[in-house]
C-alpha cells in the first residue's frame, strides 16, 4: 500500500531546488512527506477501485427479481448507483490527488478565503442532482403505495407473531371471516382467532407458508398479533412492517414460478432471526389445489391429508412431504369443523 512509483521520486528531486530557494520564507521544515502523500493518494484511489470491484463482481448482490415492482426499484437503484458511484470515485481520487499535489514542499499556501461563484455552482449542482434523483425515485414508490391493488386481486392476510407467520386466504367466497383475539387457540389450530359462527370464516384457509399464483396481482393485508414485525421477500424487493393495531396494504404481482423465502426484518424478540418461512409462486392450478377450501370430516381427515401431501410433494414444496402428513396437526384441524389450519411440523419448531 505504501509503495511509491519510481517516477514520483523524480518529482521530489525536481522540487528540491524549489524548496532550497524558498527556505527563508519557510520557517519550519516541510512535514509533508512524499511517502505519506503517495501512500494516501494510493489508498484513496484503492477505495475507488474496491468499490468498482464489488459492483463489477456482483457476487454479493440482490437476489433474482421476480415481481412487477422489482425492475422499477432495481432501475432506480442502478441510476442512484451510477450517480453516487461516480461521485464516490471522483471524490476519493480527488482527495488523494489533491493531498499528493499540494503536500508541503516549502513555500507558502495561497491566501484565499474561498470563491462565492464556486460555492453557488456546487450548491445548485448538488441540489439539482440530489432532489432530481429523489423525484425520479417517486415513480417506483408511487406504483407500490399511491395506487391500490386492482379489483379482483387475490387478497392474502399476512399476520406476524412471535416468531412465525400466518397466511390467511379468504376461500371461494373471497371474503375474510371475522376474527376475535379472544378465540385464539393455538393448540386447537386456530392461531388467528377465527369466528367459526361466521359463514365467511368457514372456508378461510390459514397456512404457515405463503403461496401465490404466478402473474396474478396479490394484495397483502399485513397485521401483527403482538409486536412489530417486518415482512420481507428479497426477490420481490418488498418490505413492509407489520404493526399491531394497523392493517397495512401492499400489492405486487409475482412473475416467476419458484420457491423463495420470507424473513422478518424488524427486531421482534429472541426468535427474530428464526422467523423464516417459504414463499412459493406456483401455477394457477397448483394454487387452486393448495388453497381450495374443502369441508373435511374427522373420518376422512387422514386420507384428505395424504392426498394433499402428495399434491404438495409434486408441487415441490419446501417442506418435506412427510411433515405435511403429520397426524397431530391433522387432528387439530379436524376439531375445527371444516377449517383447515395446516402446520407442517418443521414450521412450528
Amino acid at each position, binding site marked *: 500500500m505504501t509503495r511509491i512509483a519510481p517516477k514520483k521520486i523524480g518529482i521530489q528531486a525536481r522540487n528540491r531546488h524549489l524548496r532550497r530557494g524558498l527556505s527563508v520564507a519557510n520557517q519550519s521544515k516541510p512535514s509533508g512527506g512524499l511517502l505519506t502523500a503517495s501512500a494516501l493518494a494510493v489508498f484513496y484511489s484503492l477505495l475507488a477501485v474496491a468499490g468498482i470491484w464489488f459492483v463489477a463482481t456482483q457476487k454479493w448482490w440482490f*437476489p433474482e427479481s421476480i415481481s412487477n415492482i422489482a425492475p422499477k426499484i432495481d432501475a432506480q437503484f442502478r441510476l442512484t448507483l451510477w450517480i453516487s458511484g461516480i461521485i464516490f470515485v471522483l471524490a476519493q481520487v480527488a482527495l488523494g490527488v489533491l493531498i499528493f499535489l499540494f503536500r508541503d514542499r516549502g513555500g507558502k499556501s495561497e491566501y484565499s478565503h474561498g470563491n462565492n461563484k464556486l460555492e453557488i455552482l456546487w450548491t445548485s449542482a448538488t441540489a439539482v442532482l440530489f432532489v432530481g434523483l429523489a423525484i425520479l425515485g417517486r415513480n417506483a414508490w408511487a406504483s407500490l403505495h399511491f395506487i391500490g391493488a386492482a379489483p379482483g386481486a387475490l387478497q392474502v392476510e399476512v399476520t406476524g407473531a412471535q416468531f412465525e407467520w400466518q397466511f390467511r386466504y379468504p376461500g371461494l367466497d373471497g371474503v375474510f371471516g371475522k376474527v376475535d383475539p379472544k378465540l385464539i387457540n393455538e393448540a386447537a389450530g386456530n392461531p388467528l382467532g377465527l369466528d367459526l359462527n361466521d359463514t365467511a370464516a368457514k372456508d378461510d384457509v390459514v397456512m404457515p407458508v405463503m403461496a401465490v399464483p404466478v402473474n396474478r396481482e396479490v394484495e397483502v393485508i399485513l397485521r401483527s398479533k403482538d409486536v412489530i414485525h417486518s415482512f420481507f421477500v428479497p426477490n420481490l424487493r418488498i418490505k413492509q412492517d407489520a404493526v399491531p393495531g394497523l392493517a397495512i396494504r401492499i400489492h405486487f404481482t409475482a412473475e416467476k414460478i419458484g420457491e423463495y423465502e420470507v424473513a422478518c426484518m424488524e427486531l421482534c424478540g429472541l426468535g427474530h432471526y428464526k422467523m423464516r418461512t417459504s414463499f412459493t409462486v406456483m401455477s394457477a392450478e397448483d394454487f387452486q389445489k393448495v388453497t381450495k377450501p374443502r369441508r373435511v370430516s374427522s373420518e376422512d381427515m387422514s386420507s384428505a391429508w395424504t392426498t394433499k401431501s402428495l399434491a404438495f410433494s409434486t408441487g415441490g414444496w419446501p417442506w418435506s412431504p412427510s411433515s405435511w402428513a403429520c397426524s397431530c396437526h391433522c387432528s387439530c384441524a379436524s376439531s375445527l369443523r371444516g377449517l383447515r389450519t395446516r402446520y407442517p411440523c418443521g414450521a412450528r419448531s
Partner: protein
Amino acid sequence: MRFQLAWPSHKIPLWGQVMTPEQYLALVTMHGTIMVFFVLTTAPQSGFGNFALPIQIGAADMAFPVLNMLSFWTTFVSFAVMCAAFFVEAGAPIGGWTAYAPLSALGEIAGPGQGMGLNLWVISLFIFCAASLMGALNFIVTTLDLRTRGMSLMRLPLTVWAWFVTAILGLLAFAVLMGACILLLLDRLAGTSFFVPGGLVLGGKPVNHQGGSPLLWQHLFWFFGHPEVYIAILPGMGIVSQILSTFCRKPIFGYRAMVFAILAIAILSCSVWGHHMFISGMNPYTAFVFSILTVSIGVPSAIKTFNWLGTIWRGKVQFATANLFALAFVSLFVTGGITGIFLAQPAVDLPLHDTKFVVAHFHFVMGVAAIFGMFAGTFFWFPKMFGRTMNETLGKIHFWITTAGVYCVFFPMHFMGLAGDPRRYADVTQYKFLATLPPLNHFITIAAFITGAAQLIFLVNVLWSMAKGPRAEINPWRCTTLEWTVPSPPPHDNFGGPPPAVYHGAYEYSVPGVKEDFVLQTDSRVVAGQH
C-alpha cells in the same frame, strides 16, 4: 459479536462458550446504546467542547461551572445505571438501541431481556437526557454571552460554531427523548397504553392494553434520533475544519458557507426523521416529503466536502497525525454520506431497509467518521491539555491500521446489505438467499479484531505521552485560535487575567506580507481578513 456472525454456534475463544441469541442481541443493544449516547454524544461535545470552547471564545470558564459539574456527574450516574442493566436477573435489554414499542413496552411477557434490564435502560436514558439538557444550555449561553471583545459570530472558530449548533440540537432533541422515556416507562410500569394498541395476544394470552400507537414511539424516538446523528458528527466537522485549515496553512475555504452549511444541516436534521420510517406503515405520501427533505441534507454536506477539498487546494498539506485523521474523516464522510442518497429514497430503501447496508452507512458516517474526528482532536489538543506531545510514530501506525481496518470492516457490509442480510440477526445460516455471505463475514471479523487490537496502540500512546511525552510549546502547531495563546496546560481561569481582545477571523494563515505564516486572532499588529 463479530465472532458470532462469522462462526455462529462456535465456542468463542478465551471465553469457551457458545453465544446465545439473547447474549448476541444484548450485546447489539448495549453496543448501540453505549456508543451513541455515552461515546458519540458525550466525548466530542462535553469532552472537547468543555475544554476548548471557553478558551476559543476568550472566556475564563463555561457560563455555569456548577451546572457543568452537575451535568458530568449526572451522565456518570446514567452510565452506571446503564451498566447495571447487564447484571440484573432478567438480563440486559435485547430490543436494539431503538427499543421499538410495543416490544419494549410490554415487559417480561414479551420475552427475555424485556424486564428489569430494559427498565434500567429507559431510566438511564432519562437521566442522560437531563444531563444533556443541562450541558446544552450551558454551551448555548456560554457561546452567546461570554465571547471576548472583538469575537464576533463570524470570527468564531468553526469548532465553536459546531458545538454551539450541536447544543441547540441537543436542547431540542433530548427534550423529546426525555418525554418519550417517561411515556415508555409509564407503559411498562403503570399500565398506561401510549404505545400499545388493543387486541394484542402474546404467547396465547391477551394483553391488557388498548388505544396506543406503536408508531408514536417511532416518531418520538426518531425526532430525537435523527438530530442525534448530527449531534455526533457536527463536532467532528468543526474539529476537521480547524485542523485542515491549520495543517494546510491556509484559511478555511468558504468560512461563511461552512457556517451556513452547519446551520442548514441542523435545521434540516429536525425535519427528516421520517426517513427511518419508510416501511413502518406511516402514510406513504409523507415518505416522499421526507425523501426530498433528506436528500436536501446532501447539499450542505456536499458544500462542506467541497470546501474541505478547496482548503487543500493550493495549500501545503502537512502530515501530522491529527491531519491524517482529519483527511481520512473527509474520505469517510463521503463514503458514509453518499450511501445516504440510496436510503433517502423510499423506493430504493425498500430492499435495503434494516439490512447491513444501513449498518455500513451509519457506521461510516456517524460512527467511524465521528470517532476519527475525536482521534484528530486528541492529537491536536493533547499538547494543550497535558502540556506534552503525543508520539507521532505510534500515531501514524495507529492511523494506518485503523483507516485500512475500518474500510475492510464496513465497506463490504454495503454489499451484504444488497444481498438482503438483515441487521440484528444472531445467525443467518438458515436462509438460502444469504448463502454467499460467510466468506465476507470471516473477512470482516478478522479485520475487526485487528482494528480493535490496534486501538491499544492509541491507548498506550495517550498514557505514555501523558507521563513521558516531550514537553509541548505554547503553540506547537502554529495555529491561530485563542487556546494557543495560553500556557499548556492552561491555568484554571484559562487566561490568568482578563481575556485578550480579538482582531481577526479564526483562520488567517499565509497572509501575504506577514513574516509568519499564521496570524493569531489576538495579533493587533496585522490587518488581515475580511471579517
